């Protein structure tokens, strides 16, 4: 019964719901990381840090 419930839950969430935010199928992770590296190279770590944090937290729900 629990298995059925879990299956139903997975279906409703979509198969990609369990994927890591660093999955290479999330193209924006790659683009964002490249941008962050460019910011670091040109001395703007103060921008790179929020960009990387944004990438890491984007898949966790927050209302703010």
């Amino acid at each position: 019964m629990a298995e059925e419930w879990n299956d139903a839950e997975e279906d409703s969430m979509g198969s990609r719901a369990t994927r890591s935010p660093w999955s290479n199928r999330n193209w924006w992770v790659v683009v964002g990381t490249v941008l962050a590296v460019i910011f670091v190279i040109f001395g703007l770590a103060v921008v790179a840090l929020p960009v990387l944090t944004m990438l890491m937290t984007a898949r966790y729900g927050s209302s703010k």
Partner: protein
Amino acid sequence: VIPRARLLVVMTRPAVLVLLGLFAATGYAQAGGTRQWPLVVAVATVIGFLLFSVALNDLADEAIDRVNLAGDPSRPLVAGTAYRRDMATVGVTAGVVALATSAALGWPAVAVTAAGLALSAGYSLRPVRVADRGALASLLLPACFAAVPYLLGVFAARPGVRAGDLVVLAGLYVGFIGRILLKDFRDVRGDALFGKRTFLVRHGRHATCAVSACCWVAGTILLLTGVRPFGAALAAGYAVATVAAVWLLRELARDPGPRREERLVWTLAIVGRGMLVVLLAHLAMSQHGWPAPFAAVMIAGLVAVVAGQARTMLHDGPVTRGYIMPASGTPSSAGVAAPARSRSRSR
């Protein structure tokens, strides 16, 4: 020690800390700050301020959170990972640390921190308890969340505030009012049950979304008016984000069901945080004299990243955390318990 450290991490609510850190960094960049140490001090003050606010809010809202956020690991009192005494200790200590670190930025920063701590206490604690007072709560909370870290960032760069700083602050403040109204969708059941008269409980879904959209648009206009130097790429990126936000709010106003409603609110939060990151990038690149075309490409890239994040959240939902155990208390027949619906949340 480890459980205590974990409690502090949980209490800082990483997504909220990122947001407040962004406000501080934006204030610092707007004021022309270049050295890193003052910004670190400002962020340390912000962390103390945030821990103080979270501790007080969790203590005051424990009963409501038991309804709205039952079992949520981000609520230590509800999840049973901390006692009220622990929260009180963290809150008082964090408040003292915030005041002490702000002293390194000068007396204006101390005044802002003290005012922020007082406002935060008034938001959560009786007899003032602004949290129960509908529109007033929606006006005060953004002041704590946006104005305190932003002004600390400004004072980390220079001792005074200029007119341009205040116009940008007004834009951040008004825009954040539009976003903070939406957090009440998550809590509407418990809020109504406990008589917490939020804007949503008082005026309903359509009015809340309409006011939010107005604030979002007004905040964008104010920001673009105050930001110096003005950037065409920034304006274009903000126009795209604001149109997207208004569309998402329109969807939210149509009562799309609890799960999609949650995703819409979280997607709007991603768009809001993304707009802050883009603004910070614009200010920092301008300050460091990056060529306009190169800066425009970077901003376009950031807008694309935020759009990708928003789309992923809207369509796929959040990543899951935790496991559902079968009734027997053992993992499913496949040997691995399937993931549960995510309840990872931050207030």
